[in-house]
């Protein structure tokens, strides 16, 4: 409610409103930051120690099922949020994972090893994801983790969504519900959770739509948080929805004043940049991220039984190139989403980002490079690892040079 509270017309006027206005005063962003701060390895471990059912994983397309089973899913991202260098070293030294593998998989293995005596000992994992994660999760069983895999099912192309794949995923999800609670799945509760998540997703969609016209109102790092929250709502769906409502109110108030003058270079970001400094470099170069392809905000179907809705959701995401490698998304299609975003927003170029050493993302980026070259859309590709270290001078220079070129 920051905007309304000020009652200051000038602050609402985009011509005079200082950039970054929203970041300091927005109540929606404050709640978002508070949610993220409470969703950490340590905070969730405490909940688990107090008897709450908490698992690693299950925070993505499957989160409505997990919530319906009274369980909090902790995003795998938390495994490299801290001590990632030390964790990576454990994976290489103790588990002998060859150094050529990505920092993400290695950090996960090392961090799970460090936390082996903690209370969160169950891991839910979707089998269509990347191979390194499969391999390291098999190794974590040696540290006493109970790893459940939803078997590998993919719709490789849109026309490949086969009925028997939906049926199979439904039985897989029924099995997971029994693993989580010891009881058969409560379909009504899953339906409720789907409805709740759809509410959140629609709001996220609206926030992103408004943000595309006011790209400086929510900083890059916080926007990333909204995307991440769209998956699991940081374990607190209602509070997340409240944050989105506030942001919509704030952004609509600005939007009502009419279009902002285009004083910046509009760009689309594909994936996410690993470090806040890179976001800063983008903005310092006077570029605004007007379109962002990270996790989509498509809703779940509510016209089919709830477990089927989950199955359709993930298979559709795969063949759309959405939700990334975690769900085994096709590498061939993200470029369509990016191109659509460029056309919709009038962006002048694309920054495509991936994790260093991630085979899947590197292939996708090459397809994007080829494609955008063909259709005449400038693109720069970046690689960052999962360590929260400042980007290299070379990376910053590349970003700045790219944006300068677009200008």
């Amino acid at each position, binding site marked *: 409610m920051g905007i309304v509270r000020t009652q200051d017309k000038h602050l609402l006027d985009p011509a005079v409103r200082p950039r970054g206005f929203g970041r300091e005063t927005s109540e929606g962003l404050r709640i978002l930051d508070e949610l993220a701060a409470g969703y950490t390895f340590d905070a969730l471990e405490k909940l688990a120690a107090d008897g709450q059912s908490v698992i690693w994983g299950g925070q993505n397309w499957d989160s409505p099922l997990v919530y319906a089973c009274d369980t909090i899913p902790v995003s795998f991202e938390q495994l490299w949020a801290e001590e990632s260098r030390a964790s990576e070293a454990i994976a290489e030294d103790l*588990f*002998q*994972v*060859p150094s*050529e*593998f990505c920092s993400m*998989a290695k950090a996960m293995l090392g961090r799970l090893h460090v936390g082996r005596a903690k209370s969160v000992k169950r891991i839910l994992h979707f*089998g*269509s*994801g*990347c*191979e*390194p994660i*499969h*391999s*390291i999760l*098999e*190794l974590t*069983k040696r540290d006493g983790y109970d790893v459940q*895999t939803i*078997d*590998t*099912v*993919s719709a*490789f*192309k849109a026309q*490949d969504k*086969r009925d*028997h*794949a939906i049926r*199979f995923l439904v*039985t*897989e999800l029924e*099995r997971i519900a029994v693993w989580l609670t010891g009881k058969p799945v409560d379909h009504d509760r899953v339906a409720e959770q789907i409805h709740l998540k759809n509410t959140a997703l629609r709001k996220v969609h609206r926030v992103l739509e408004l943000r595309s016209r006011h790209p400086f109102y929510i900083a890059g790092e916080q926007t990333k948080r909204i995307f991440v929250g769209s998956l699991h709502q940081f374990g607190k769906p209602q509070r997340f929805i409240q944050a989105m409502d506030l942001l919509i109110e704030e952004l609509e108030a600005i939007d009502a004043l009419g279009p902002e003058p285009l004083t910046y270079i509009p760009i689309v970001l594909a994936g996410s940049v690993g470090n806040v400094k890179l976001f800063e470099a983008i903005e310092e170069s006077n570029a605004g991220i007007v379109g962002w392809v990270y996790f989509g905000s498509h809703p779940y179907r509510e016209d089919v039984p709830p477990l089927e809705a989950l199955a359709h959701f993930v298979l559709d995401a795969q063949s759309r190139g959405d939700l990334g*490698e975690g769900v*085994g998304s*096709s*590498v*061939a299609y993200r470029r369509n989403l990016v191109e659509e975003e460029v056309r919709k927003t009038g962006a002048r170029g694309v920054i495509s980002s991936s994790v260093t*050493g*991630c*085979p*899947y993302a*590197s*292939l996708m980026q*090459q*397809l994007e490079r080829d494609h955008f070259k063909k259709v005449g859309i400038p693109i720069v590709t970046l690689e960052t690892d999962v360590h929260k270290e400042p980007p290299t001078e070379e990376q910053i220079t590349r970003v700045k040079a790219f944006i300068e070129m677009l200008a």
Partner: protein
Amino acid sequence: MATHAAHHAPRKAPPSISPDLMPIHALIEAEQEAFIKEEDGLKRAGYFCSYTPPELLNAAGLRHARLFKAGTPAIVSNGERYTQSVFCDFSKSCIGGFDKDAGDPFYLAVDKLYNFHTCASMKRATEVLDSMVPTTMLNLPRLRGEESSRAFFRDEIAHFRDDVADLAGRPVTEDDVREQIVLFNKARRLIRKFSDLRKRPKPPLSGRDFLELVRGFYYLKPDALLAAYEPLYRKLSRSRGKGDGRPRLMISGSEMADGDRRLVELIEEDIGAHIVAEDHCTGLRPFTYTVCETGDPFRALADGYLDQAPCARMKPIEDPLDFSGQLAQEYAVDGVVYVYLKFCACYGATRSAFIGRFQELGIPVLEISSDYSHSDIGQLKTRVEAFIEVLNEKRFDRLLAARAAEAEAAAD
């Protein structure tokens, strides 16, 4: 003895296989030539992985082959244009082989490519290939112990049948499939019998020869294969073998592509040890099972292929570990050479588990991380030689201990 020049040009190299195998080698080469050139009106189908049932391709009357060549440096680097450096050289070869200007003519003759989703790298490679060649991808479950996963795989196999029938332009009945199951079982059984010959103290065929037989399985039609292999089996089974006293080795790990023979040649020809078993998907591993010949043929194929010796991508990892350990014991190997292609998550990231298992069983292991660059051949030779030396010392110690025990028993 293989020359260094041969190592640098594996495709063009004169085959370092025994004269007994030369007729089979010639058959394979002729079939590859015909696959490319013969105007027979038949569609060509290619597939990558040993979890693909060729029974169905054959039932549809397609000309088919497993695409598992180790690419030349030029082909690998074509593939690398897409993958950058972070894929294994096999997946790069698969992409590079389809490059319309500089690919492999054998790959370019393929009308349709099939790939069961084995490892994620091959899935990604196939997604790229989809824009170069018509492609169908199919699911392959990992939880082979779960009934629902097996039923799902059965449905994927039935879908595969529909797809190949469509490609061939003719129906494929259940009876057609059953007939092929019987035929392929015969071929698999025969190859297994060849491998059993290697259990003898003096194996009548080398590891290099065995790989050639396996190669035939993936290129030749089963009836042609049986006609050529049966007389050879009779001959080899009567042979007394040679090279007694050499250490017996098993190769375990990532697939060893057609043409990737430098390690095998180094071990058998340059250094002089026997390779008597392979726990990889281009050696003995895919031949250790039989498909049920009665009942629903799609279910039989699903069960058969899931029950086959598991690749490391299967769950739980204990299954492939158990299989590997048992195979090493069954073939009474003195040591294991564990080879994984760089960037292979299936065998690279889990190497500690495999190596640990062999060590638990008291079997010495040499670990090698490899690619198709041939740049490290000198270093490789030194490491393998040192390993064989250790094995020889151990064997010698065992021999001495046995003699001493015998002498002691005689004195009593």
